[in-house]
């Protein structure tokens, strides 16, 4: 079972040069290297707080973590099923506001609100997905944008129910087994756990017949219908899954920030989510995570102010669209396979 889970098989990248014999992801040598990679990644990420990295870094890591969770939903929708959304922050908003409103009006805390946030965001995702059955491509993208703007208007004008423009506050997460989630380290591990569940779920979906069905819809809807795939149902299904991930990210966000307001879920945050998915690449398992890391850490590493960082993102996005349509993740994979191929050839030459 663990073997299966750690076998980080990637779906094909368009025009990928790896579609040749010897690169079968199921071959044993590849499986071992994938396991080594996944274990190394887990150890590194889990050990981060003990490296004395400072609160600033840790808080960016937490932001990256919950953003990545939302991105995995968008990644399924965009990378696997091929339907982009530029209103995905609205789904996060539904999750976050569900938790905040349950806490403010009914006194319901984090753990009880968690399933409610996920379910409501999933339902909202399905509803926003409905127009995609009629319109596609850029027309649908505009609809997602409108939904996001509409949600911000509703939240801003919701009076004390939604906290209006000032937003809402929430308390802290009740202790579980004596763990105090007010401590940044512990919150980091909470987000990390949620991210691990998200990754495992995404991996399972991508490698299941359901994942293949989604890719079939992405590649050729007409043919998918002709072989008996219920395209409409699967589209709504992927929107709901996408919404569920965003709901989880939303509740993690609100209990981390302790205060939310409508501007967090408007046009700009939505565009950032779309940017991160395209930058990282939605088709490969690590794509959304790479996108979240780049966008969240870039200004910190390069010491950019908010205006400069927006320019940097724009340039980065253009470069990726022009040179790496599969995102940074597919570029890294191609480089990795190329280097691997070189080493193998070297090795066989030396051996002969």
């Amino acid at each position, binding site marked *: 079972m663990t073997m299966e889970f750690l076998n980080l098989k990637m*779906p*094909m990248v*368009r*025009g*990928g040069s790896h*579609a*040749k*014999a010897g*690169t*079968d992801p199921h071959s044993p040598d590849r499986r071992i290297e994938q396991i080594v990679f996944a274990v190394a990644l887990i150890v590194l990420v889990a050990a981060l707080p003990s490296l004395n990295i400072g609160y600033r870094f840790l808080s960016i890591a937490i932001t990256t973590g919950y953003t990545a969770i939302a991105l995995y939903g968008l990644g399924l929708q965009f990378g696997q099923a091929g339907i982009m959304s530029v209103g995905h922050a609205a789904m996060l908003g539904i999750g976050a506001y569900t938790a905040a409103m349950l806490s403010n009006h009914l006194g319901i805390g984090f753990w009880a609100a968690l399933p409610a946030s996920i379910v409501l965001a999933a339902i909202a995702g399905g509803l926003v997905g409905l127009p995609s059955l009629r319109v596609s491509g850029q027309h649908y993208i505009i609809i997602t944008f409108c939904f996001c703007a509409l949600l911000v208007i509703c939240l801003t004008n919701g009076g004390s129910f939604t906290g209006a423009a000032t937003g809402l506050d929430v308390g802290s997460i009740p202790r579980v087994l004596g763990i105090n989630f007010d401590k940044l380290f512990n919150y980091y591990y909470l987000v990390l756990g949620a991210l691990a569940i998200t990754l495992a779920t995404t991996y399972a979906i991508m490698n299941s*017949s359901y994942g*293949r*069905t989604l*890719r*079939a819809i*992405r*590649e*050729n809807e*007409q*043919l*998918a*219908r*002709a*072989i*008996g*795939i*219920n*395209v409409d149902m699967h589209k709504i299904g992927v929107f709901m899954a996408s919404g569920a991930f965003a709901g989880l990210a939303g509740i993690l966000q609100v209990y981390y920030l302790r205060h939310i307001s409508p501007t967090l879920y408007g046009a700009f945050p939505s565009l950032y989510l779309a940017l991160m998915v395209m930058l990282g690449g939605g088709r490969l398992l690590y794509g959304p995570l790479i996108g979240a890391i780049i966008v969240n850490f870039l200004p910190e590493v390069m010491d950019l102010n908010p205006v400069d960082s927006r320019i940097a993102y724009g340039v980065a996005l253009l470069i990726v669209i022009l040179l790496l349509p599969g995102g940074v993740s597919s570029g890294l994979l191609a480089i990795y396979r190329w280097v691997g191929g070189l080493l193998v050839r070297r090795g066989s030459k030396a051996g002969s």
Partner: protein
Amino acid sequence: MAALEINGLRKAFGGVIALGGVDLSIPDDRITGVVGPNGSGKTTLFNVITGVYPPTGGSITWHGEDISGRAPHQIARKGLVRTFQQAMSFPGLPVKENVQIALERGGRQLRGGEPRWHSPEELLDFVGLGGRGNDDAGSMPFGNLRRLGVAVALAANPVLLLLDEPAAGLSDGEASMLADLIIKLPGMGIGVCLIDHHMTFMTALCQRLIVLDFGTKIADGTTQSVLTDPKVMEVYLGGEL
């Protein structure tokens, strides 16, 4: 009664009548050919049968059940699977995954029966694409793409396979290889209904031909009798003035 019974089928696009009341019965145990000049309604016939367009009038009965107006995926799940005139595949995915998707979908229709093909490789071998499983479908040459289209349709577990111009754009050699493949299907329990212009291809494969012209059936019978029918000669060669 044949497996697929079509009565008075009509399809109009605005004022254009693509099918003007067609009666057909297509069995699911042999190869039936549909021919006719361009614009005679052959592809529209397939599109209406497989639910791409709802019919304007008439009925389509499949094994005694009225299927007119059903969604394409529902009709496909009943064993009526079609291919497309434009060679279609899931271009960004490996050939093996193309077939696997359809096998998984088709496998759900078996209801305890034994699948015809147990793996994508087995089916790819059958259509002559063995060893091509890891290629990207989108980068394949046209002839192979045609075969892949047939493989994907076969994987969806058809009872009657509707092939829309499978030999279009193929060389004579490729067309005869495809014919060798199609002729095996009735023996495996798969009926075939075939549209094509390539007459040597059609006469080699079909015992029965149906001729459409301007959305109506003008001939229906054994291949030999249809080819000598004066009405068919008129449509194809032009009548006397």
